[in-house]
C-alpha cells in the first residue's frame, strides 16, 4: 500500500519539479497536467473517487486549458514560447526560503506523534456527498456558486479589451 503511495508521490513531485524549472512554458503546462493527474491518482488511492473526478475535470481538463490559452495569448511572436532565464539571485533566495519552509514542515510532520490509527476506511458515496451539499452545506454551495459566477464575470471584464469609444457606459 505504501509502495503505491510512494510511486504516485514520486511521479507527481517529479513532474511538478521539472515543470517549475523548464523554460518552455508549453512543456511546463503539459508536465503540470501530469502532476495534477498524479494528485487525482492519490485521491483515488485514498478512496475519494468523487474528489479525484473533480480534480481531473477541473485541473486536468479546465485549468490546464486556461493556462495553455494564457500562454498562447501572452507571447510576443509565433515562436516565442520560452522565457528568459531568471536571475540567479532570485532563484537562490527562493531556494533558501522554500528549503526553510520544507525543513520546518518535514520536521513538524516527523516529530509529531502519529501512531497508526486503526480507524476503518471512511466510505463516502456520491449520494451522501450530494445530500450533504444540498442539506447541511447548502449555504456554502450557494456561496461557491456566486463566487464562481462573479469570478468568471470578473475574469471576462479584466481580460476584455478596454472600451474607450463607449462613453455612455462610463458615467
Amino acid at each position, binding site marked *: 500500500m505504501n509502495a503505491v503511495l510512494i510511486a504516485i508521490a514520486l511521479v507527481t513531485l517529479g513532474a511538478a519539479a521539472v515543470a517549475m524549472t523548464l523554460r518552455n512554458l508549453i512543456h511546463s503546462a503539459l508536465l503540470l497536467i501530469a502532476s495534477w493527474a498524479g494528485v487525482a491518482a492519490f485521491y483515488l488511492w485514498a478512496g475519494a473517487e468523487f474528489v479525484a473526478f473533480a480534480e481531473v475535470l477541473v485541473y486536468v481538463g479546465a485549468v490546464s486549458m486556461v493556462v495553455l490559452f494564457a500562454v498562447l495569448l501572452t507571447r510576443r511572436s509565433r515562436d516565442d514560447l520560452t522565457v528568459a532565464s531568471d536571475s540567479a539571485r532570485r532563484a537562490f533566495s527562493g531556494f533558501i*526560503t522554500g528549503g526553510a519552509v520544507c525543513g*520546518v514542515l518535514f520536521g513538524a510532520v516527523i516529530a509529531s506523534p502519529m501512531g497508526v490509527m486503526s480507524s476503518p476506511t471512511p466510505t463516502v458515496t456520491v*449520494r451522501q456527498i450530494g445530500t450533504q451539499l444540498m442539506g447541511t452545506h447548502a449555504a456554502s454551495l450557494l456561496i461557491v456558486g456566486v463566487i464562481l459566477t462573479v469570478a468568471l464575470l470578473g475574469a471576462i471584464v479584466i481580460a476584455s479589451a478596454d472600451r474607450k469609444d463607449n462613453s455612455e457606459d462610463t458615467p
Partner: protein
Amino acid sequence: MTGLAVQNLWLIPALPLVAAAIGALTPRTGRSLAAGAAIAAMGVSFLLSCGALVTALAHPAAHAVSNFAWFDLGASAFRLGWLLDPLTAFMCVMVTFVGTLIFIFSLGYMHEDVNAKQFFCFLSLFASAMLGVVVANSLLLLFVSWELVGLASYLLIGFWFHKPEAAAAAKKAFITTRIGDLGLLLGMLWLYDSTGSLLFFDGGNGVLEANTLGALTAHTALGGFALSTVIGLLIFCGAVGKSGQFPLHVWLPDAMEGPTPVSALIHAATMVAAGVFLIARVYPLMSADQALAHTALHALTVVAFIGAITALMGALIAVAQNDIKRVLAFSTVSQLGYMMLAIGVGSWVAAIFHLLTHAFFKALLFLGAGSVIHAAHHEQDIRSLGGLSKKMKVTFATFAIGMMALAGVPFLFSGFWSKEGILHAAHEWDVSHLPLYAGLAAVVLTAFYMTRLVAETFFGKARSHASDHAHESPATMTLPLVILAICAIALGFLGTPAFPWLQAKLLGEAEVHGHSLLEGAGLMMLSIVLVALGLGAGWALYGRKLRQKSTSPDPLAAAFPGVIAFLAARMKFDELYAATVFKLNSAAATFADVLDRFVWDGVIRFLARLGEFAGIVNREADEDGLNAGFDAGSKSLRGTGNAYSRAQTGDAHGYLRVIAIGFVVLVLVVMMGGGR
C-alpha cells in the same frame, strides 16, 4: 486456436488505443513507428477477435458477459461490462480484418503526407472506439465509444483541414450526427430511469432480457405508445444520424473530403455500420412491442420505412453523381437503407449478413477508387478519367468484382446472397409490401449506376492528362484489394439459403438447417431479371457508345435534364435545410438579441438611473454637512499612511517571501516551546 474468454475481451479495443497513444507521443518524424504500431495492434486484435469468435461459436446461444461496477452511487452503481456473443464476435473479426487491410493500404496512400503519423494515430483511435461499441455490454459504455467514434471521424474527415471543404465537411458530419445522438442520449436516460440499469445482459436483469422488456411494454408513455416503442425510436434516432439514414444522411457524401482510406473505414467497416449494429444489438427492445395489438405504431415499422426511403433515395441520387467517391457514398447510403429495412421487417440477421458482406465489397470499392485517385493525381471526376482498364489491371479486376458484388450479380458474389436475404424478408413482412418494392427498384438502380461508374472510369480512352499517365499502384495498395476481392466472393457462401451457417450462428442455433434453393425462387428470379435489366440499361447507355471527351454530355442528362439536375443537386436536401432549419435558428438568435438589447437592457438602465439619482441626493447632503470635520481628520491619517506605504514595495515575490519566512519563524517559535 484457443478461444478468448469474455473477461479478456477488453484487450480487443485496448490494443488500438495503445497504438493511438504511441502515435500521439511519437514525434512527427517517427511515422514508421506510428504506422507499425497501428498495424501491429490491429493485427493482434484481429487474432484475438478470431479467438473470441471461436469461443462464441462454441456456445452460440449464450450471451457471455463480464460486468463490473464503474461508479458507486449510493445504493446503486453504474455498471459496465463486456459482452461476447456471435454478433459481437463476427463484428469484431470484420472490423479488425477490414481495418488491418485499410491500415496497410494507407501506408501506400499516405506515403507523401507529412502528417502521416497523426493519420495513423487517428485511425487507431477510430478503430478502438468502434471496437468499444461492438464489445460493450452497457448502453452507457456503448454511448461513450459511440461519441469517440464521432470525435475520431471528425478528426479524420477534417484531416486535410487546410482545405475549407474538408473542414466544413468535418463540422457537418459531427453536428449532424450529434442531432441523432441527442435522441440516443434521451432514450438512454429514459431507459435508465425506467429500468435502473443500462446493461444489455445481466443474468436476467439486463435491459434486453425478458422481465425488463415485459415491464417496458406494460407501461404506456405519451400518446398511447408503449414505453419500449418510444425508447426504441429515440435510440433509433442515434442510428439514423450515425448510419446516414434519411433525413440525416446529408453529412455522409460530404465526408468524402477526407482521405480515401478514411472513406473506406467510415463508409464500409465502421462508423456507418455502428448504427445498424446498435439497432441489431437492441433488437429485443425494438421488437418488444410487436406482440401488442393496441399500440398505434410499432417501432420496427418506422425503421422499415425509413430504411426503404433511404435505400431508394440513395440509389436515385447516385445515378446523377459524377465524382467517383460520391457515387460510392450515395450507394453506401442506399445499402445502409437496405440494412435498416431488413431490421425493420424483422430480420436483423439478414441485416448483419448484408453489413458484413457490404463491409468487404464497399471497402474494396473505396480502396479501388483510392487506387484510381492516387494513380490519376487526385482526379475524381469520372468524366475526366477513362481508359484505366489497361493501365491498372489489378485495380480494374478487383474493382469489377466489387462492383458486381454491390450490383448483386447472381450466385458467385456475396452481395447477391445478402441482398436476396433482405428482399426475401421484406417479401414475408405482413404489414406492407411498399419496402419490398422500394428495395426492388433500388436493385435496378444499383446495377445501373455501378455499370455507369465502371464504364466511365475504366473503359474508353483517357480523357485527361492525369488519367493518360496513370500507372498501377504499389503492392501495399493492391494487396489489400486482392484480399478484399477474394473475401467479397467467398463470404457469400457462409450464408446462402442452402447452408445458412452465419444466420444460424447469429440466431444462436447449434444446428444449421438449409433450405432448398428453390424456396422463394420466384422472388430470386425476379431480382436476377432486375439486376440484368439494370446492367443492360447501364451498358446500353454508357458502355456501348463510350464517352469521347470529358465535356460531352451525359446521355441520361440529355434525355431528362430536369430530373438529373435535381438528383445531381442531391435532391436539394442541403438547400432545404438551409432554408428551414438554419433560418429558424438565426431567427431565434435574432429574437434573443432583440430581447436582450431592448427589453432587458431597458430594465437595467432604469435601475441604473435610479441608483444615480440616489447618489446625487446623497452627495448634496454630504458636501454641505459632513465634509468639514472629516477633512482635518484625514490629513493626520494621510501622514500615517505615507509611513506605512514604504512597506508596499510592489514586489509580489517579496510579499510571498515575507509570508514564507514569517511562517517559518512562527513554527520555530511554537516548536521551541513558546506555544504553551
